[in-house]
């Protein structure tokens, strides 16, 4: 329970805390002292892993397929998944984004039964599949932000731009702010700004001028703050992070196998969840990565020693 609360606090913006390792973990830490593979001994594995995009490619395929299903349902009129990412019907059954639904009901001061049904279904789904898996496996903004991030990293390597980290608690502040604004003004400011909705609608109903705002966000992320929207603003991601706190689909960490060379933290959108891979940090020999994890699998792909893996808790290993 304590670890769930720790995870939730981490999602809301608290910095990772260090606890003394258990006896078993301490033994592994001790055994690694002096004999853990040095980075130069791992160069071949690191190189090989850097070219491995297995999970990223699967994920992009799923993301594109889901968004294409929305588009085709309208354009070819196959009617499987009608609506857009804020609210839709899958074969007639309501689906609705949890945070957007909450905002609309706060603004309306009225409980819309269809939204409650749709949002509950979605909450249950991501509660099982791993909260922020929505972000990396479905969200179209996540995809374009990943490309912007690649550009940012390339420019940063050349020293043209640099990242300016912002306190992650800002995202929690936005989460509350947008809710309070909806309640007080009766209008949903967030839904007007929401790049996920703008992109989803553009993919289905055609390009719009609102895409300029999305482009502005991406430029900001390239030149000033890496993955700023996802890390510091998006209340949709925060909501799914909270909902997925106990999700059985996890990325898990194996202390024994870890070389502590830190490749995983470099690629991670939410690298604070991987602080436990820093040498001497892990409190247990096996650990689950916390609820802010988007289950994107970049760390799984890049880990040169297989210490990070997908796992379905309660069932045998996926991989």
């Amino acid at each position, binding site marked *: 329970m304590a670890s769930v609360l720790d995870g939730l606090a981490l999602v809301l913006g608290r910095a990772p805390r260090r606890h003394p390792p258990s006896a078993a973990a301490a033994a592994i830490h001790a055994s690694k002292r002096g004999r853990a593979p040095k980075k130069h001994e791992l160069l071949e594995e690191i190189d090989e892993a850097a070219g491995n995009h297995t999970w990223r490619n699967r994920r992009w395929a799923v993301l594109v397929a889901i968004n294409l299903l929305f588009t085709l349902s309208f354009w070819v009129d196959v009617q499987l998944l009608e609506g857009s990412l804020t609210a839709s019907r899958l074969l007639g059954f309501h689906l609705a984004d949890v945070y957007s639904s909450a905002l609309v009901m706060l603004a309306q001061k009225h409980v819309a039964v269809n939204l409650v049904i749709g949002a509950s279904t979605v909450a249950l789904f991501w509660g099982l599949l791993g909260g922020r898996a929505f972000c990396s496996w479905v969200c179209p903004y996540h995809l374009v932000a990943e490309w912007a991030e690649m550009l940012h990293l390339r420019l940063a390597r050349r020293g043209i731009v640099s990242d300016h980290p912002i306190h992650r608690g800002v995202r929690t502040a936005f989460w509350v702010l947008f809710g309070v604004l909806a309640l007080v003004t009766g209008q949903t400011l967030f839904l007007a700004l929401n790049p996920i909705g703008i992109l989803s*609608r553009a993919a289905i109903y055609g390009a719009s*001028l609102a895409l300029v705002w999305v482009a*502005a966000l991406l430029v900001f992320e390239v030149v000033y*703050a890496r993955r700023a929207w996802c890390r510091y603003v998006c209340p949709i991601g925060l909501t799914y992070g909270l909902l997925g706190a106990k999700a059985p689909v996890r990325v898990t960490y194996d202390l024994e196998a870890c070389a502590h060379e830190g490749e995983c933290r470099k690629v991670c959108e939410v690298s604070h969840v991987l602080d436990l891979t820093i040498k001497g940090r892990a409190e247990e020999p096996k650990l689950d990565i916390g609820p802010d994890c988007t289950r994107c699998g970049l760390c799984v792909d890049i880990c040169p020693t297989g210490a990070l893996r997908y796992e379905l808790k309660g069932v045998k290993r996926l991989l």
Partner: protein
Amino acid sequence: MLRGGVVTLALLVLQPLAGIPLARRLRDRLRPPGALAEEAFLGACIKCGQCVQVCPVQAITLADAGDGFGVGVPTIEAREQACDFSCDALSCILACPTGALSHGLKQKEEVRAGLARLARPELCLARRGEPLRGLARGPGFQGLLRYEDVDRWNPLPMARHAYDREVCDLCVLECPIGESAIAMLPLPAAEGGGPGRSTPEVRSGCVGCGVCEMVCPAEPAAIVVDPRANWSSRRKPGPAGGLV
């Protein structure tokens, strides 16, 4: 870190696409049937577009960034494609998951999206006593309309439906509501009336669907729908329950 937070906040608050127009809408928009009062409607819409998808004539489009809070919210451009109720079921209302399009409405006669008004009487063919032969809006017009005597179930392109009217009366002929909403009356002598001249009269049954605006052969349309208008915002209906 603090400076970064301030920059992020400033960017969000000052960004022009949602920030400025939300203070004041540029113009009134015609909304789909059953839309709540404008402010409540904007707050209640989740911007999913399910109403767009079910409309058989695709009358509904989503507003763009210039509409501030209205970005992604459904609108109808009646002159391009009016709602002709050819779904028979108020499908958009049934599709709306939030109740922004009110489920309280059961039939098209209860809709009050706006009110038709003869905005340019000097262009009205009926008042000039002129006929309408051929296409109402020309061969390039994309709009659809249900012609019940041709095909009860499928709306057809207006560009494939030629008219042959002694004196133009399309606004009355094609009104999905009927004579409780609009009727053709002899043009009074005081307004230049004479043999063969008549004038449309909008009546209390008008739902503001915009079909009359779409079918009007005058360019620009002689009759238009004022979005959100109602009888209390206008002069009182005339003796026949109508007014021009």
